[in-house]
C-alpha cells in the first residue's frame, strides 16, 4: 500500500469511481489490488447500475492514443503494484492533448491515489 496503514475500503472507492464514470466508456489506465475492472463491475452489480464500458489499458503507442480518443473518462493515478503497465509519458501527453481534466481524486496514501479525468463537455456532448 506504500504505507503502514490499514487497507482502505475498496467497496467505497469502487462505488465513488463508479458514481463518476457511470456506464460511459472508461479507460482504466490505473488498476491494482484496490481498484480494478472487477471492483468496478461488482460495484455496478451491487448498485443495480449498468456496468461501465471499460477499455482495456493498452501499454503504449497508437493503441493508447486510440483508447484515449474513445474514452469519456480515464482512471489514472499512482500505484506501487499495477496490474497493467501503462506508458505514463504517453498517457500524460494524451490527457493533455485531449484536454481531459481531473474531476475526482482519491488519496489512499503518500504513494497511492486515484484520479479520474473527464473529457471536455463539448467533446462529451458531441459523442451522444
Amino acid at each position, binding site marked *: 500500500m506504500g504505507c503502514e496503514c490499514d487497507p482502505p475500503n475498496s467497496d467505497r472507492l469502487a462505488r465513488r469511481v463508479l458514481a463518476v464514470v457511470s456506464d460511459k466508456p472508461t479507460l482504466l489506465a490505473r488498476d491494482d489490488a484496490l481498484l480494478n475492472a*472487477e471492483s468496478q*463491475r*461488482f460495484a455496478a452489480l451491487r448498485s443495480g447500475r449498468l456496468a461501465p464500458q471499460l477499455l482495456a489499458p493498452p501499454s503504449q503507442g497508437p493503441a493508447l492514443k486510440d483508447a484515449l480518443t474513445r474514452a469519456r473518462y480515464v482512471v489514472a493515478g*499512482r500505484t506501487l503494484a499495477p496490474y497493467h*503497465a501503462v506508458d505514463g*509519458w504517453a498517457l500524460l501527453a494524451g490527457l493533455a492533448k485531449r484536454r481531459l*481534466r481531473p474531476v*475526482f481524486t*482519491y488519496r489512499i496514501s503518500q504513494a497511492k491515489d486515484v484520479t479520474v479525468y473527464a473529457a471536455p463537455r463539448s467533446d462529451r456532448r458531441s459523442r451522444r
Partner: protein
Amino acid sequence: MGTTTRSSRRAAAIACAVALVAFLVVLAARWQHGFANVDDYLYARQAHEFARALANGPAALVEAWRAFGQNAPLVPTLAAPLAAIDPSPHLLTLAQLPFVLLLAASCTVLLRALGLAGARLALAAAAAASAPPLLAWAAMFHFAFPSAALTVAALAAYMLSRGLRSLVASALFGLAIGLLCVARVIGPLYAGALIAAVAGDQLTRHGDWRERLRGALVACSSAVLVATPWWAAAGGSALRYLTTAGYGESPFTHEAGLLERARERFDWTTTETGWLVACVVLALAALGLARALRNDRSRRPALLMAITALCAMTGLATSTNAGTGFALPAIALAVCLAAFAVAAPPARRSGRPAAGLRGLRALCWRVSLTSAAGLPCSMRYLRQASGSDRSGSSAHPDSSRRAQRWAASATHLTATD
C-alpha cells in the same frame, strides 16, 4: 469404540474448534476493514451468477459454468445460496468455513498417521490448521485455501484407506481428488502430484493387490464422477486459460530458464508466506521429515506428504505465472510436517544431539507461538495476497507522478478516505 479412536476424535474436535475460532478472528479483521481483492470481486460476481442460474434449474447452471469457464466452480457454487442473500465477497468468505473444518480434521488424521496421539496430536493439529500462512487465505473469497484443504484431505483419506484396502476411504480419496479438480483450474496439477505420490506408495507395497486394485478403481470412479460434469461443460476454456495464462504470451508470464523458474517459484512462495515464517516452516518440515523417516510407522505417511509437496512445486515451477497462493497445498503439507517436528515426543536416546534437538524445538515453539499470537494481525498476509506485492509488471512511477503533479495544478474534487 477403541480408546485410540476416541482420543483421535477428541483431538480432531479440539483442532476444529481452535481453527474455527482463529478463522472467525481473521474474518472479523477482514470485515472491519472492508477491503476486497480483485479475485474476491470476480468470484463474488461468479457466485451471484450461479445463484441466479440455480434458480432457473441445472441447465442454466451449466450455462453459467460455461460463461465463467476460466474459473473453477466449486467454491462459487457452494457460496451461491449466500450470494442469493448478498453477493458481497465479505459475506461469501463464510463459504470457506467447511474447508477450515476439513483442513483441521485432515491435519489430525495425517498427524495421527505420523504417530502422534493424545494431547500432542490435538495441539499439533490445532496449530497446523490455524497456521497464519494458511488461515490468511481463508479470509479471502479465493480458491487457494479450499485447494489446500482438499489436497490435505485427499492424503488423509488415503491414509485412512490403509493403502486403498478400505473401499469407503478409497471412495473418499477419489471424492477429494475430484473436488480438487473442480476447486481451482490448476487443481489437476495438485491431483497429479497426489496421484504420483500414491502410485509410488502402491508400487512399494506387497500383497492384497486385488483389494488395492478394487480400491483404486473405486477412487478413480468417484473422482471421475465428481470432476467430469464441469470439465465436460467448461474444460475447453479452462484448458485454454491454463495454457495461455501459464505458458503463452500473457501479462503474467515471461521468458525464463527452468532453473530461473524454480528460483522464482521459491522466491514468490516465501514472499507470500513471509520470509521468517517460511524459513521456520521449512526448517521444521525438514526436521519433521528427518524424524519421521527414522520411524517405520511414520516413514510412509511422511514420504507421501513430502513427495506430494515436491511434485506440486515442481509442476508449478514449469510456469512463470506467479499466481496467488498456488503453492498453498504444498505449504499446508509442510506445516503438518513442521507441527509433527515440534509436537513429536523426544527420541529416547541420550547424548548431546538430543539436547541440541530439544533446544531447537524450544526455539521453534517460541517462534510458532509468536506467529500464532500475531494471527489477528494476519491482515498483512491479506495485503500480500491481495496483490500489493504483485510486482510482476513494471510500474512507471515517474510518469504517474508527473501526471499527478499536472492533476494537482487543476481544479478538482478531492475525496480522502
